[in-house]
């Protein structure tokens, strides 16, 4: 297919009116050209759909042995014991770790991102907006493995020595901040995920804030509102669905992050309220267990974790994109 297009392209480049090709011949070549370019681009578009479908199919297919062996009980089983003969696998502790680290990260990242977006659209001096916005977005360009390296060698020890003892002595009566302190665990994972999601959520939120009609903002200001009152009465209500979508996209990003989380979370089983002890997430267990899985059932169970993770992220992304699409339709 591509071969014909290329050869047609070669002959077709002759300058128009050179007389090398008859009119009819050129007409035919053009029809072939139109047709082949259409078919090639269509094939590429279908390929991207096939890749997405293939990912879903293969992950479910790879998990089938574990799905038929453990059923839905896999989700609530809190165990991961690869030693035959009594192999038992379950996702509960990873689902817990994923939920706590991601929700925790978004709990910090959401207000931070909204404040940054407000800063960049409404409050910062006009000339500072572009450079600061660029710097915040560059944060997203830092590879996750580098963030993880920083997390394990700098952030983790710092948290253990300077932050966790303080949190424990002041808030130790809350189970979240109790007991043992460790350089790896849920807290560093949460903070690393915060750093990763802030640029995403803030840049999406900023774009949404920019679509707020000028008339309503100016109307509020003309009525004597302070800037905060203007934001509270026009910008935030108008953008609420978009902010929700941005946060969901951030969540999707956070639950799917495997590398940086693997580096800082410690890879331990168990459901503990304490944020300072090692834990594990779905993505990070897949990362650490997929190569060198000792048995077939173990590998299938890793794929089962993949099924859960994929389902969650597809749902999150699909919902968020639908909301964004509806908003942009409304805006245009």
């Amino acid at each position: 297919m591509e071969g014909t297009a290329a050869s047609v392209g070669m002959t077709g480049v002759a300058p128009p009116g050179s007389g090398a090709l008859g009119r009819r011949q050129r007409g035919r070549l053009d029809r072939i050209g139109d047709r082949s370019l259409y078919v090639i681009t269509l094939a590429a578009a279908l390929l991207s759909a096939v890749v997405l479908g293939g990912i879903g199919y293969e992950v479910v297919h790879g998990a089938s042995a574990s799905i038929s062996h453990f059923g839905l009980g896999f989700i609530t089983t809190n165990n991961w014991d690869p030693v035959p003969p009594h192999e038992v696998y379950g996702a509960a502790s990873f689902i817990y770790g994923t939920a706590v680290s991601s929700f925790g990260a978004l709990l910090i990242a959401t207000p931070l991102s909204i404040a940054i977006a407000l800063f960049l659209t409404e409050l910062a001096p006009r000339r500072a907006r572009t450079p600061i916005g660029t710097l915040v977005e560059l944060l997203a360009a830092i590879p996750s493995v580098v963030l993880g390296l920083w997390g394990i060698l700098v952030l983790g020890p710092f948290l253990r020595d300077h932050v966790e003892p303080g949190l424990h002595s002041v808030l130790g009566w809350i189970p979240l901040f109790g007991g043992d302190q460790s350089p790896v665990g849920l807290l560093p994972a949460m903070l690393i995920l915060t750093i990763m999601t802030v640029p995403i959520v803030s840049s999406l939120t900023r774009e949404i804030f920019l679509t707020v009609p000028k008339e309503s903002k100016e109307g509020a200001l003309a009525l004597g509102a302070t800037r905060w009152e203007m934001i509270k009465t026009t910008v935030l209500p108008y953008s609420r669905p978009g902010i929700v979508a941005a946060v969901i996209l951030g969540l999707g990003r956070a639950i799917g992050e495997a590398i940086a989380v693997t580096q800082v979370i410690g890879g331990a089983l168990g459901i503990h309220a304490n944020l300072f002890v090692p834990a594990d997430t779905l993505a990070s267990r897949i990362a650490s267990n997929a190569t060198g899985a000792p048995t077939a059932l173990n590998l299938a169970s890793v794929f089962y974790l993949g099924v859960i993770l994929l389902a969650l992220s597809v749902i999150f992304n699909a919902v968020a994109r639908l909301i964004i699409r509806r908003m942009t339709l409304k805006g245009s």
Partner: protein
Amino acid sequence: MEAASTPANHPLLQGPPNLKRRRRVNRALEVVAWVSAVVAVAALFIVVASVFVKGVGALNLDFLTQGQVAFGPGGGIGNALVGTGIIVLLAAAMAIPIGVLVALYTSEFAKSRSASAIRYVLDILNGVPTIITGLFVVVLIVKPQGHQSGFAGAVGLAIVMLPLVARSTQEVLALVPSSVKEAGLALGVSRWRTIVSVIVPTAFGGILTASLVAVARAAGETAPLLLACSIFPTTTVTDPSQAMANIPIVIFQYSESPDPSKHTQAWAAALILILFVLLLSSIARVFSARVKKRLEGTR
């Protein structure tokens, strides 16, 4: 600030008694917003600065050219630089042409309904966790082949790059003024020739920018490589059908090593990676601003 030009006893300023409190709330919001922006920028600065401070000492020509040493200090990341170069180039060679074709389909050929369906597929694909992409590549290539390979890694990275290239190319193609397309068609030039000789060249800068961003993303992408290309020799491999060392996995493995000399090497490798990625992203950013301005100017 507000009272700069009006006298303090101006009637409009004799507001309701709670004006002071409202101003204070407003001021608090401004402070919170400033602090948030500073925190985010500081995070970038702190991470980049620690990578720089801890990595720059280990950086020298030997480190960049020599292969890895399994244990202890010495050796370099030469083999991983070569491997990453090959893997990323292969991935780019797959993802960029396909991504551009997808974008051409949605913006030039497809009806609006199928175009929006394809865009939706790309967005979802973009949201698939990259570790899942790794699992897919394991089933697709690593298992049938019997071992990991640079090619398997490249396919994983290409899947990550594809939606990025396609979506940003779509955005640039949408900026190509319809007057340009119509001029071509009005002259009786066929559709495919208008696309190849008018639309694509007009959007070329934007396509290049999209490709740079995607390459920057792929260069640091670790998760697919962890499953597709992470068990490799310390020697330089140039055959992509074999497993080859690469920078992200070297950083990942060294970061989990108990050996402090490996930590130093991890920082140095991270410094190289981060410089490359930030440089590429910055170039793309400057470039894309210029491309957009030019395209919007011709409207």
